[in-house]
C-alpha cells in the first residue's frame, strides 16, 4: 500500500518552492534547532519541550502576549485564607482532543503525575502540601507557606486526561524507556498532533473542539528540526520553511533588507553571565598563582571592569542585545529598577583593583565556555578572553559542546565559566534560588550555584521573598539581594540574549520573551 505522507504537497512540489508556500496559504512550516525529545509534558522540563507542547496541551493558567498570567483551563483563582493556598475554578465544557471531558479529576491526576519523582517538573510543586477536589470544577492547592507567585509558577504545568493516560499505561512519565505519552499527545489545546516522527517532523492540525477563540488561519503546521544554522537560513531564504528560530545574529541585517523575509526581534528572558569558583582553594588552570584570586570580590569587579560589553554588543551581537546589571532582564517580575549600573568598561580601574587585591601583574587562569548553547557563545568568550588579557588576566579559553560542558562545571573543572539563565517562573526569585543561594541539597537550593557562592543575608532573604505577599515589601527584599550580588559581584552579568525569529514576509506572529512559539497567534496571508 502506498501512503502519501504529504498528499497535498505533491502537486506543489512541481512548482518552484517559493510559489508553493504562497499557493498553500494556510500551510505553515517552521524550523527549530532542537526537536522536543518527548511529547510528555511532565517528563522533561526544557524550553524546547514545554514551548512546543504549549500548542497542544494547556495548563490552568497561561501567559498572554505580554507574559501576564491569564485564564486558561481555570477561569479564575484566588488565595485561600491568609496564604494557605490557592483555589482554582475550572472552565466548563472543555474536552480533550480525544473527546473526553475535562474535570477536576484530570487536574488532580496531572498534579500527581507532574509532582511524582519520575517527573522532571516536581520542583514546581515543592511548596504544595496537598491538592483537594472541592467539586467537579473547583480545585484547592494547599501550600506549606504563603506563596504569592504560585499561579505564575505553574503556567507551564499542563493538564493531561486521566482516563487517556490510564488507558494507555502512561500514568507516570518514563524518561528512560518512554511510554505512550512520549510519542502521542492528547491535550485540550488549539492544535493536535496528527503525525510525530521524532527528529524529522511533527505535524499539527487545528483541534476543532477547542474552547478558545481562533485567531490563526493555519490548517496544517509542520515543525522540522534543522541543526545547522546556515542550512536553516538557506531554507528560509529559499522558502522551504516559513519561519526559523533563531536567525544567526550576523544575518539579521541582511535579512532586514530582504523583502521576502521579516525579522522579529525581542529580548529573551535569558541573561548571559560569568561565574567563578568562590569556594576553591586555588585555581585549577593557572600557571602563575596557587591562590584563588576570584575568591576576592575586587578581582571579580576587575573582571567586570575589564569587559567591554558595549563593544561585544556592537560587533558580535550587532546591536541585537541589551546590557544588563543583574541576573534577570527588565521584562521579568521582580526586576530591580533601583539597582545602579554595574562596573563600566574601564581597564585602568580593572588593573587598579587587581593591584589592590595583590595581583599587580595579573594572573593566568582557565576559562570554560560552551560552543553550542547560547547565541554566539564561543565568539563572546573569545572576545572576553582578549579583553581580560588586555587588563592582565590571561585566560586560556576552552570552548566545548554543551554535553561536555555541564559535567565539567559539576566537576569543578573551571576557573571562570559562562552561564546563561532564563528564569522558568519569569520572576527574579528564580535565579536567586538556583544561582545565588548557598547550595543545599535537602532544601533543593543553589543547585546551579557551581561556584558555591554563599552569603548569609541572601540565604536569609530568600525564604522571605518566596512567601511575601505584599508586592512592595517583596520588591524591597529583591532589590537588597540584587545590590548584594552586585557589590559582591557573585556573577558578572553581561547582556540579555536577544530573540531573533525570521519569517517569510507573508506571515504574522507574536513573539514572547520566553521564546515559546505559539502557533495560535500565527497567520499566513
Amino acid at each position, binding site marked *: 500500500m502506498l501512503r502519501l505522507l504529504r498528499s497535498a504537497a505533491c502537486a506543489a512540489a512541481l512548482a518552484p518552492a517559493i510559489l508553493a508556500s504562497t499557493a498553500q496559504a494556510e500551510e505553515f512550516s517552521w524550523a527549530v534547532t532542537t526537536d522536543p525529545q518527548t511529547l510528555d509534558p511532565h517528563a522533561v522540563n526544557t524550553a524546547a519541550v514545554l514551548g512546543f507542547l504549549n500548542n497542544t496541551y494547556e495548563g490552568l493558567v497561561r501567559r498572554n502576549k505580554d507574559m501576564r498570567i491569564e485564564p486558561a483551563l481555570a477561569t479564575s483563582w484566588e488565595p485561600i485564607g491568609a496564604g494557605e493556598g490557592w483555589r482554582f475554578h475550572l472552565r466548563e465544557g472543555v474536552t480533550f482532543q480525544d473527546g473526553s471531558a475535562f474535570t477536576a479529576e484530570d487536574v488532580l491526576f496531572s498534579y500527581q503525575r507532574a509532582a511524582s*519523582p519520575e517527573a522532571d517538573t516536581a520542583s514546581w510543586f515543592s511548596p504544595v502540601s496537598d491538592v483537594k477536589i472541592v467539586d467537579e470544577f473547583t480545585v484547592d492547592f494547599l501550600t506549606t507557606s504563603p506563596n504569592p507567585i504560585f499561579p505564575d509558577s505553574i503556567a507551564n504545568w499542563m493538564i493531561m486526561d486521566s482516563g487517556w493516560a490510564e488507558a494507555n499505561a502512561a500514568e507516570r512519565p518514563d524518561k528512560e524507556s518512554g511510554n505512550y505519552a512520549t510519542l502521542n499527545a492528547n491535550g485540550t489545546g488549539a492544535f493536535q498532533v496528527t503525525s510525530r516522527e521524532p527528529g524529522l517532523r511533527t505535524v499539527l492540525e487545528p483541534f476543532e473542539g477547542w474552547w478558545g477563540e481562533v485567531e490563526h488561519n493555519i490548517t496544517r503546521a509542520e515543525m*522540522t528540526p534543522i541543526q*545547522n544554522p546556515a542550512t536553516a537560513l538557506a531554507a528560509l531564504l529559499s522558502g*522551504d520553511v516559513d519561519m526559523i528560530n533563531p536567525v544567526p545574529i550576523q544575518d539579521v541585517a541582511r535579512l532586514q533588507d530582504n523583502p521576502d523575509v521579516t525579522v522579529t526581534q525581542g529580548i529573551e528572558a535569558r541573561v548571559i553571565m560569568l561565574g567563578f569558583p568562590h569556594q576553591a582553594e586555588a585555581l585549577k588552570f593557572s600557571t602563575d598563582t596557587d591562590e584563588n584570586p576570584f575568591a576576592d570580590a575586587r578581582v571579580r569587579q576587575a573582571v567586570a571592569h575589564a569587559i567591554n560589553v558595549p563593544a561585544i554588543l556592537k560587533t558580535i551581537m550587532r546591536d541585537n542585545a541589551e546590557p544588563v546589571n543583574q541576573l534577570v532582564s527588565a521584562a521579568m517580575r521582580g526586576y530591580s529598577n533601583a539597582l545602579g549600573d554595574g562596573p563600566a568598561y574601564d581597564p585602568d580601574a580593572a588593573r587598579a583593583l587587581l593591584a589592590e587585591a595583590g595581583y599587580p601583574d595579573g594572573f593566568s587562569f582557565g576559562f570554560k565556555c560552551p560552543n553550542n548553547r547560547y547565541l554566539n557563545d564561543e565568539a563572546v568568550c573569545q572576545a572576553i578572553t582578549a579583553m581580560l588579557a588586555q587588563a592582565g588576566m590571561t585566560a586560556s579559553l576552552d570552548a566545548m559542546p554543551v554535553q561536555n560542558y555541564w559535567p565539567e562545571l559539576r566537576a569543578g573543572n573551571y576557573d571562570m565559566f559562562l552561564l546563561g539563565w532564563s528564569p522558568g517562573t519569569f520572576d527574579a526569585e528564580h535565579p536567586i534560588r538556583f544561582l545565588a543561594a548557598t547550595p543545599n541539597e535537602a532544601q533543593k537550593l543553589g543547585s546551579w550555584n557551581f561556584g558555591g557562592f554563599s552569603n548569609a543575608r541572601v540565604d536569609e532573604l530568600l525564604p522571605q521573598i518566596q512567601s511575601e505577599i505584599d508586592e512592595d515589601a517583596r520588591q524591597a527584599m529583591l532589590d537588597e539581594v540584587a545590590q548584594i550580588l552586585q557589590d559582591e559581584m557573585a556573577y558578572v552579568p553581561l547582556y540579555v540574549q536577544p530573540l531573533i525569529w525570521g519569517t517569510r514576509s507573508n506571515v504574522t506572529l507574536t513573539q514572547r520573551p520566553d521564546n515559546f512559539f505559539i502557533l495560535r497567534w500565527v497567520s499566513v496571508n
Partner: protein
Amino acid sequence: MLAYIIRRMAQSALVLLIVGLVAFAMFHFVGDPIDNMLGQERTADDIERLRKQLGLDRPFVVQYFKFLENAVQGNFGMSYRQGRPVIDILLERAPATLELAAVSGILAIVFGIALGVFTAIKRKGFAANAIMSVSLIGVSLPTFLIGILLIYLFSVELGWLPSFGRGNVVDLGGWSTGFLTTSGLKALILPSITLGLYQMTLIMRLVRSEMLEVLRQDYIRFARARGLRDRNVHFRHALKNTMVPVITVIGLQLGSIIAFAIITETVFQWPGVGLLFINAIQFVDIPVMAAYLMLISVMFVGINLIVDILYFFIDPRLRVDRTGGH
C-alpha cells in the same frame, strides 16, 4: 568457498566485538546524558537517581557485557533522548541514509569508473589532464563547505533545488522512499553530489592508475598484437582486470560513504542515521551511538564479505589473499 565464508564470518564477529568494546569505551568521554534528560530545575538527587536507573553507575565492563547480551538478542536498548527502542529508530532512519548512500555510491562508481577509464586511455590528452586536475578540487575542499556552497548556489541564489530534507517520501511497507516523488528526487540531487564527489574522485584516480598498470601488461600488448579493436582491448581485457583491485577499494569506499554521510546529513538536514548519530552525540544518547557504530560495522563487514564473494566471480584464479592489498 563455504568454508572461506564461514571463516570470514567468524572474523567479522570478532571485529564486531572489538568495535562494540571500543565504541563503549568512547562513551565515557562524550559527555553526560543526564543533563539533557533533566531540565534546569533538577537536583543532585534527581541526577543520581536517573544515573542509577540508566545503569551508568555500574563499572564500564559490566555495562559492556550487559549491552552485548542485549545486542545479541537484537535489543539495543532504549534511546535516552526519545524514550523509544533504538532499533525502531534506526530502522526508521536507515532508508534515508541507504538511499542517499546508494545514489551517491552509484554516481561515484559510474562516473568514477568512466572518467578513470577515459583518463587512463587518453593519458596524454588535454581533456584527461584537465579532468585529473579539476577532480582534485573535489578532494581539496572539506565536504561540509562544498555542501554549503551548493545550497547557497542552487537553493538560495537559483532556487532550483530544496535546501534541506528529503522532500516527500512514500511509505512502502516500512521503507520510506524518496525515489517515487518529484520532490524526493530533487531533494536527493545536492546531498548525493556532495557525498559522492569525494568518493568519485578517489575511484576515478584509482581506476586510472590501475588501468594504466594493466594497460602495460603483456596480455594487453598481446591483445593489441592480435589486432583486437581498441574498444575490446580497453573494456573487455583491461577494464575487467582493473576491476579486481578496484573492487576492494570500492567496497571500502561504500563503507566510508555511509560514514561520511554524517557530515552531508548534518549540512542538508537529511533525516538519516548519520544525522541521528550526530544528534545522539549532542545529547549523549549512548544506546543510539552504540547501535549506530554496530550498524556501520555490520554494513562494513557485510560489504567486505560481498566484495570477497565478488572475487570468486571476477577472478577465476580465486586469489583471495587480499590482505596484501594494492
